[in-house]
């Protein structure tokens, strides 16, 4: 059992028993935390692992949300049936939209991914094909129904989000222990060396975008059921910036770091509601300070994720 699995397991245990101690308000905070952790991890695959400066992640998150919302309200699909398309469509869109720009370096990629996000928003606001509900979004989304039984209570929502996080952590673990995850790191650390070792940069960056978009889409689908409503501004660039920041403040590619980042950015504000107005001011200051004091994030990643039989000699 490696460190990633250990931290994930510990975290899953804590989150698994959380509902037994929480009232409905705290349960809602818990759901938010679970859903946004999944999005943060998916952003981390692209930004923290593959090293692609991606600042448009809210688009993929929103695409999943809207897929579920549209299929449910316009075409009468049950929520469960929308889960597969809510993953597949963001993956497809991510591949199509990033393929022409994936070769762009650093800041150029960053700006064009902001562009993807903004174009997505305009599509929603302009009600393209008349199915997105324009700026108001879509209301009255069903709850999940299993065998005719409506899972309306929040506790079901919580455990569905919990299972999604479990799946996400499992995927991250698999990825970290595969040539795919390693290839992303190699590209991130030195792309010239990586390609000289036979790594197809384009393929693995797109691979990262595909997994990231798929997971974000799944989280979006959860998000929309939780609030039974969805509208464009939940997926604006500010949201993408938040996801981007979570990863870097917490620590790129660091599991506990990303969880910590999510907690600081999404859960603390829920708890300290009195600071509502000054909240972003405090955030901004915290972002600057964190970067100055810990440029690699609060809990930076430690490499050396190798099988035990290779570890010998000094540290």
């Amino acid at each position, binding site marked *: 059992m490696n460190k990633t699995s250990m931290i994930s397991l510990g975290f899953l245990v804590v989150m698994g028993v959380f509902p037994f101690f929480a009232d409905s308000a705290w349960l809602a905070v818990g759901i938010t935390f679970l859903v946004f952790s999944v999005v943060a991890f998916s952003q981390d695959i692209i930004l923290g692992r593959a090293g692609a*400066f991606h600042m448009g992640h809210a688009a993929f998150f929103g695409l999943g949300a809207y897929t579920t919302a549209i299929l449910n309200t316009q075409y009468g699909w049950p929520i469960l049936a929308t889960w597969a398309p809510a993953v597949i469509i963001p993956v497809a869109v991510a591949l199509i939209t990033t393929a*022409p*720009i994936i070769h*762009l*370096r*650093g*800041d*150029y990629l*960053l*700006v*064009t991914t*902001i*562009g*993807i996000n*903004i*174009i997505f928003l*305009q*599509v929603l*606001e*302009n009600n393209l094909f008349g199915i997105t509900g324009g700026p108001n979004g879509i209301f009255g989304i069903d709850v999940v129904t299993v065998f005719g039984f409506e899972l309306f209570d929040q506790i079901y929502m919580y455990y569905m989000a919990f299972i999604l996080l479990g799946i996400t952590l499992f995927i991250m673990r698999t990825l970290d222990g595969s040539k795919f995850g390693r290839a992303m790191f190699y590209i991130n650390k030195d792309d*010239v060396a990586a390609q000289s070792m036979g790594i197809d940069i384009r393929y693995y960056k797109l691979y990262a975008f595909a997994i990231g978009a798929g997971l974000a889409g799944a989280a979006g689908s959860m998000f929309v059921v939780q609030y039974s409503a969805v509208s464009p501004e939940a997926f604006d*660039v500010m949201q993408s*910036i938040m996801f*981007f*920041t979570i990863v*870097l*403040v917490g620590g*790129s590619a660091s599991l506990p770091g990303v969880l910590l980042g999510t907690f600081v950015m999404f859960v603390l504000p829920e708890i300290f509601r009195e600071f509502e*107005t*000054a*909240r*972003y*001011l405090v*955030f*901004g*200051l*915290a*972002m*600057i300070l*964190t*970067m*100055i004091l810990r*440029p*690699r994030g609060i809990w930076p990643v430690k490499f050396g994720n190798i099988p035990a039989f290779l570890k010998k000699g000094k540290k």
Partner: protein
Amino acid sequence: MDIFLQQIVNGLTIGSLYALVALGYTMVYGVMKLINFAHGDLVALSAFAGLTIYTSIFADGGTSIVAVITVFMFTAAVIAVVGVLLERLAYRPLRTAPRLSAVVSALGAGLVIQNAIMLIWGPNMKIFPSHLFPSDIYHFGGIVITFTQLMILIFSSVLMIALYLFINKTKMGTAIRAVAIDQDAAKLMGINVNKIIMIIFIIGSGLGAVAGLFIGIYYRGITFDMGWMYGLNAFVAAIIGGIGNIPGAMFGGLILGLFNALISGYISSAWAETFTFMLLIVVLIFRPTGILGEKVAEKV
């Protein structure tokens, strides 16, 4: 035809504002390779600060050339100081850190400025007095141009030409260009890099302040979060022109302003941003470093 020319005038006006803001981005990027995400918010701050300076100095609501010049000078000075502080506190400690750390710090600084504006001036829209500039309107054939528009066009052209001359014809300008090309080498040649970066921030913030005031005077309604929109457009303009390149930023700003006006006028204003980013992507596919940007080969 008149309608087309009118759209060109509209586009050039907003384009010059973009260009002024874009210069701030491009100068900082050229020297520090950092997207100064807080720059747009500085522009917003300047509009608010300018309004407060105006109302506190000229409480009677009178207007004169003296009043306008005073407001511009004062505001530009204040914003330049804020810009320098920004660099000192949020960017300088990160000059050797990973690049993304500085990006996050810049995003954080933007949030701080934006929300400081909200806390100081409140979340509601603030409104510039309408009499700051004369409300004269000039007719050229079928084209209409207001005094404010004319001032924006003239003033920003003068500033841009002055900046161009400063960068290319003075010793200080040469030093700036040297630092942009190679900081270490410039240091070895005895150039004080910190001082150059400070000057960059003074000029960039000052130009942003002028743009912010013009936005306030021209559109009158200012909101604490408006900086983001101008910032993003200006930044895209800088990239289209070739980031790090001063004529590129001017050119990019004007191109983007015109492009926006024509798209809004002839296709749909609802899709303006979509077209903006499509333009950006197309430019980057064919010219990966922007229209006037130089090709950079990486040493392997």
